[in-house]
């Protein structure tokens, strides 16, 4: 009783602190939101708030926003933001919406942390399960992560995807498969790539079914889940069709991600590769890159079958590196779920190196971009090199986490090996 009160008080304090911090940044530094919106590290062609405003402007003036090269975001954003008071006159409502989305994401993360799924899933319980952080700490790490704050201040629409993904996971661990599937459909509808999270999420739902409503046939369960996702996505598409009046939005929203026709720089590996790609090989390499991105799903799901949440975490990290238009908001989502694995941190070998590399890239990225675009004293290779470093640093982190988790699993079979030198054959 008392404990619940304390938790509630802490939760309120944390949320209030995070909200006040964001609101203070929004209002006290009025130039910052627009500055961050313009940063390529935060706003990609598919998440930029400025492009959203342009799409909204065209939508409100009866010009199809998809009949142009600027707006590549989901159609349902348009009525949502039209409902808000105009951003130009009353920006506070937009700020409040973004802050609320961040808090809702933090709440979902809190629930995931509290469920203890990360340390003890249905098929596996970590020997190190005692050593974990509470939901409060994990939510605080998410809310006060500079990447999260920058994304929120930059008003990138990827916060909605983040929120939907975290909710899908939270629903899954609390034994509500349908809710998880609906949330995942929303995430996929907004950004497409979360569709790859479906297999591990279905497994997670399957493992965490409520005993009274459990089915024993995994195939049947997967089919139901997949059809639920398909159904919800179809409904969303139909709604979008009603809103925009045509199917034009499909090529403009998802086609752009598939074909990478907009080559605006970002922190990922795709843009420069496809600027420099020979025209005759463009389609081939697009196919290869997408195949590469999807190849992780099956492998990880099968190999780490006992911990589906680990698969989801690793996939989020992989997407933050290899998806077509990544931004630091994907990084912030990955960093939000990594602290769930506090118990395997001691098993990670390159924490310092990867943290240093990520910090190095975060500091030098904006500087090199400035040298290329504004000062003219550097060329595109400067920023490209930094995105390579960023990608390598992140992949080192993902690999390291994967290693730590697998070793943790292995030590269940070989408890005597804890803390000993090992190797892989």
């Amino acid at each position, binding site marked *: 009783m008392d404990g619940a009160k304390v938790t509630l008080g802490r939760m309120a304090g944390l949320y209030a602190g995070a909200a006040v911090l964001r609101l203070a940044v929004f209002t006290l530094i009025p130039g910052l939101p627009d500055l961050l919106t313009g940063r*390529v590290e935060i706003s990609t062609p598919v998440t930029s708030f*400025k492009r959203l*405003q*342009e799409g*909204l*402007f*065209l939508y409100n*003036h009866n*010009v199809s926003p998809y*009949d*142009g*090269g*600027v707006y590549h975001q989901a159609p349902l954003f348009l009525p949502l933001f039209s409902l808000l008071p105009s951003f130009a006159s009353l920006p506070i409502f937009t700020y409040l919406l973004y802050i609320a989305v961040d808090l809702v994401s933090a709440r979902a993360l809190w629930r995931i942390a509290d469920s203890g799924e990360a340390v003890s899933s249905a098929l596996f319980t970590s020997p190190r399960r005692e050593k974990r952080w509470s939901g409060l700490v994990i939510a605080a790490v998410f809310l006060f992560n500079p990447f999260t704050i920058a994304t929120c201040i930059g008003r990138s629409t990827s916060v909605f995807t983040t929120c939907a993904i975290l909710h899908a996971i939270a629903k899954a661990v609390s034994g509500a498969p349908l809710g998880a599937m609906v949330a995942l459909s929303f995430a996929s509808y907004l950004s497409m790539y979360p569709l790859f999270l479906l297999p591990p999420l279905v497994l997670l739902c399957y493992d965490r079914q409520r005993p009274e409503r459990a089915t024993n046939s995994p195939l049947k369960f997967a089919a139901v889940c997949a059809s639920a996702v398909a159904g919800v996505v179809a409904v969303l598409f139909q709604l979008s069709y009603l809103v925009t009046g045509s199917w034009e939005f499909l090529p403009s929203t998802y086609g752009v991600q598939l074909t990478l*026709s*907009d*080559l605006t*720089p970002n922190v990922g*590996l795709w843009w*420069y*590769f*496809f*600027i*420099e*790609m*020979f*025209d005759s090989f463009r389609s081939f390499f697009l196919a290869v890159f997408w195949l*590469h991105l999807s*190849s*992780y799903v099956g*492998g*990880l799901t099968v190999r780490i079958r006992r911990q589906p949440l680990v698969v989801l975490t690793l996939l989020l990290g*992989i997407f933050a*590196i*290899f998806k077509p238009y990544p931004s630091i908001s994907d990084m912030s989502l990955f960093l939000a779920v990594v602290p769930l694995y506090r118990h395997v941190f001691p098993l990670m070998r390159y924490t310092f190196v990867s943290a240093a590399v990520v910090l190095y890239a975060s500091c030098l990225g904006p500087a090199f971009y400035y040298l*290329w*675009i*504004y000062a003219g004293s550097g*060329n*595109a*290779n400067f920023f*490209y090199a930094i995105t*390579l470093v960023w*990608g*390598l640093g992140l*992949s*080192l982190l*993902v*690999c390291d986490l*994967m*290693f730590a988790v*697998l*070793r943790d699993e292995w030590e269940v079979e*070989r408890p005597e*090996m804890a803390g*000993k*030198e*090992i*190797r*892989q*054959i």
Partner: protein
Amino acid sequence: MRQLLSFLCLSLLSVNVFSAAASAADSDYHEQLNLRPLPQSALLASFNFRSNTTVAEFEKGNFRFFPRSLGQILQHAGTRELHLRFSLGRWDAETWGARPWDGAREGGTGVELWAWLEANTDDEADHKWLTLTNALSGLFCASLNFIDGTRTTRPVVSFQPEGDHASLANMHLLYGVLPHEVVCTENLTPFLKLLPCKGKAGIASLLDGHKLFDASWQSMAIDVRPICPTAGGDCVLQIEQTIDMVLDIDRSKRPRGNPIPRPPSGHDLPCDTSKPYHAHDTCFPADHTANQDWSLSQIFGKPMKGVPSTRSVFVSEGVRETRNPDGLSQCFEIPPSTELEMALPVPEDATLPVTITPETPLLYAERSFTGHGQERGGVQTILRNPSPTTPVDFIYMESLPWFMRIYLHTMSARLSPTPNSTTTTDQTDLIQQVYYRPALDRFRATQLEVRMRVPPAATVVLTYDFEKSILRYTEYPPDANRGFDVAAAVITILDPNQEQQEGGRRIALRTTSLLCSLPTPDFSMPYNVIIFTSTAIALAFGGMFNILVRRFVAADEGPEGGLAVLGKLKGRLKGLKGRLKK
């Protein structure tokens, strides 16, 4: 019928372009040269050539004065009306005043083409447009074939057909512009070839590539339009070729044999005698000499000479002279087979007005980029209405390349604060209507038409933001860091009296073109980038694959790895050594 009439009109103080006496349908061919001195020792020479053919003859393929080469292209491409412009330089409206022909015969820098095509569908119109641009490209030695879908727009309100068309239902207006095209003599030669005498006789004999492209501003125009007399009768197809050029008299008079400019010797310097310190040994150079003496052969490099009532003009014999009743201009009708020379001496009467005030244009427009860096920028157009009483209504049209991603929601017009401004116009009135068609990457250009009103004696600043996209490396021209040309904005001023009627007097003016620098990749390293990125991906994938598929064992367990093999090898070597020692 076969009357070749040449007119030479000269206006000194005149502000009106003198129109030829012969009406359009009277004769088959008509040519006219209008010379108008402008302030600062500039001279505007407007050449105008007009040929007619009846539509019936044209359709039968009987061409007389109408150029056959162009006529067949028009027939093949189903073109009902054609306007083609080749321009170079900038019209200095602050000094030179209003534009010749109300701006209707000029284009923005580079090449501009717009035509009304007869087609049933948009696709058919596009197809015919492609045929037309490719054929014209060959005819005029210009890169008109580069006017593809990404440079073509379909303006809604900016252009109106000049000719008389029975119905506009099946007519498609397409507009294409090539701001990067450098207009040069290779475009002049085919232009002159379209004339009946191929530029060998008449006023066209004055045209010379060296002089034309040395001008401060020049514009070549071809307009083809059907004209049906209101009284009834046969419709005629008219081709009008116009060349306007602004020559710097001082520069043109430079001797041909000695083209290198040298400082004039002291006694040749024109001095400003009004200065108090002017004396026999001091000279304050006058920047521009008014009322200079010149002759046709001096400024065009060829004989043909001429001028007005307040200044005496010497012309060759046999030239019939008509004076305009206002006393400000004079016209000469030149009979065939006469060589014309015209000289304009320095006026003896020193009290003549030194400067001529040209007609004030209805609107001054200036366009420029704002912001810095290669990521984003803004466009700012300053529109100034000089008239103290009447507002100006106009349509501002931009045709922007797709790689300039404009944000329409940032477009705003505001009244620039002027010290003596008393206007209290509501600022929302400035923009009245917007026609916008956003660009599609690699397919279509942005088309923006804004109907605006500038209140009297006010300056309006129209701004919007845009973002510069980065292109694939094969899409950059060889001189990628020079930047990309952005076509001139076309401003069409609507006549306030005939605003609603079609065919009301419209005055056009164009801003200068702009140079937009895009971010560039490193062109030298496609292979390196492919290799580096692939390596990064391979490292990540390989690392994860390794961790996923290999088994964990303790460091001292399992089969011997690489290091153990090395140790074994060492032992073997030692053994071998020992054996050898034995």
